[in-house]
């Protein structure tokens, strides 16, 4: 069992204690939260950081000269440094956005405006709608073309199919770092190597990867990376776009307003240098500070142990599902090259009815198309039931889920 031995030394109870929401009892039941891929829970460290800002330093950033404004600005910029440390990049390459979707839209709009009609972008069949629709909007605006890499029956992006999609007009390959449906990890090295053969840039949607530990972007050779705060133990309303400095320098603004300017006149306006060029108006200051705290908190965990713990739970889940008549996994059946997001089907029971039944057992999961309708269409599925695991989950969460699935199998078909 991959990593099960290492997980023995991971103190999951100590991690759980840091998440006050998990100690709740709702309708007489403990909270078995397995919907982390939608939104993860938030530890005291993040709640404390936001509260400290709101109660000791709340003010607008960058413009004020008073002490609260100075404190707020320092906390906001320190959060940028925390994020940069988490990603092993320069803080000046970190742009705070409203979320992961906002970050991808920023690239699609701003970098996209540098593309010409007939230029091509490659996506995959398993992308979240947030990594499809912004490019379709760009296609409408600019006349670019979109090519789609298929997925294998195991729910992995079929990189064998990628070379034949590459052309001299391919400017960008934008893929999920980790699938929000199957948990599969894309082979970044292979993608970057292939992209370089035609000079294409690479963007990764890191929404499902970042909640599972630091990412060394400096070693990956990619160009753009996006993720959301609320899936990474931080607040809602904050996300991050990282891009190489040379790209940010070349990109025009997305939104216009305060903070993102150099000098404004009615005849001409100049832009601030990145990252402020892309942070028009008052940014989400408290959420950014919370996200900085979340990145700092994540770096306090031993992720070798935490990941082994998460994958031991995936094994427990997969073993249990295989013993339930009519339950089948959608996606890889192993723990290799994947993260702890597991989709399954229960024959004769709609995923929403599985999820609703699980709720009555105190188990929170997500069911449906997971904002991946093209992937569902590819496999002719109504949807799946998705279990997404975080380091604070334990065996009781998995066992409660398996009990609920057994109940659904008994009563709903």
């Amino acid at each position: 069992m991959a990593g099960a031995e290492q997980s023995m030394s991971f103190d999951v109870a100590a991690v759980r204690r840091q998440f006050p929401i998990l100690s709740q009892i709702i309708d007489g039941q403990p909270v078995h939260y397995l919907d982390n891929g939608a939104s993860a829970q938030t530890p005291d460290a993040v709640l404390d950081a936001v509260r400290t800002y709101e109660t000791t330093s709340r003010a607008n950033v960058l413009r004020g000269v008073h002490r609260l404004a100075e404190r707020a600005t320092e906390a906001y910029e320190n959060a940028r440094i925390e994020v940069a440390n988490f990603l092993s990049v320069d803080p000046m390459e970190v742009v705070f956005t409203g979320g992961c979707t906002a970050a991808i839209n920023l690239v699609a709009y701003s970098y996209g405006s540098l593309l010409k009609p007939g230029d091509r972008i490659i996506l995959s069949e398993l992308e979240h709608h947030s990594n499809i629709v912004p490019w379709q909007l760009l296609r409408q605006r600019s006349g670019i073309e979109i090519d789609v890499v298929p997925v294998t029956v195991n729910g992995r992006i079929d990189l064998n199919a990628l070379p034949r999609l590459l052309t001299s007009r391919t400017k960008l390959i934008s893929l999920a770092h980790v699938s929000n449906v199957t948990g599969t990890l894309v082979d970044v090295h292979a993608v970057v190597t292939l992209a370089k053969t035609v000079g294409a840039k690479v963007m990764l949607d890191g929404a499902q990867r970042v909640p599972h530990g630091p990412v060394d972007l400096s070693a990956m050779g990619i160009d753009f990376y996006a993720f959301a705060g609320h899936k990474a133990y931080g607040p809602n309303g904050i996300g991050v776009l990282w891009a190489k400095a040379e790209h940010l320098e070349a990109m025009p603004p997305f939104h216009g307003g305060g903070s993102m300017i150099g000098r404004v006149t009615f005849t001409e306006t100049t832009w601030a240098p990145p990252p402020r060029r892309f942070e028009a108006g008052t940014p989400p200051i408290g959420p950014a500070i919370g996200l900085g705290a979340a990145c700092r908190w994540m770096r306090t965990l031993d992720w070798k142990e935490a990941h082994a713990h998460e994958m031991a739970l995936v094994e427990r889940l997969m073993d249990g599902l295989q013993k339930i008549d009519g339950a089948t996994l959608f996606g890889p059946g192993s723990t290799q090259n994947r993260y702890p997001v597991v989709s399954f089907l229960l024959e004769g029971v709609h995923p929403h009815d599985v999820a609703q039944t699980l709720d009555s057992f105190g188990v929170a999961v997500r069911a449906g198309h997971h904002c991946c309708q093209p992937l569902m269409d590819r496999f002719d599925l109504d949807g799946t039931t998705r279990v997404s695991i975080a380091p604070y989950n334990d065996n009781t969460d998995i066992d409660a889920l398996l009990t609920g699935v057994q109940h659904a199998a008994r009563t709903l078909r």
Partner: protein
Amino acid sequence: MTDQLYQDRIVALAKAKTGAGKLATPTKSARRDNPLCGDRVVVDVKLDEGGKIAEIAHQVRGCLLCQASASALASVAVGRDAAGIEKVRLDAERAIGREEGEAGEPFAAFAPVKAHKSRHECVLLPFEALKEALS
């Protein structure tokens, strides 16, 4: 377990699959999707000369609640026109607490859905498809 949304009567309605399938020569047909959850209902109707439903069939790609609602609707639709279907819808809306009053059968069976607002649309989607087919 904390509640009993899937009570025997709702499960029985879904399993009955009343009206499930297609009509060979429908007078009208309509499809409605719920973009949030992906549920899809296609309703075929054959109308008589007075505009009343003579035959009805439905194809549901959706959850048990949606299947049960389509089945219940098909069981009472024949002989009704658009206004008559609106009266049935009132029963459904009463059952799930969107309207005041006591729900008539067979939609009284949907009373357990009242507490689950996120599932109300599952019950109403077949009505939306039928309304469009009758429009």
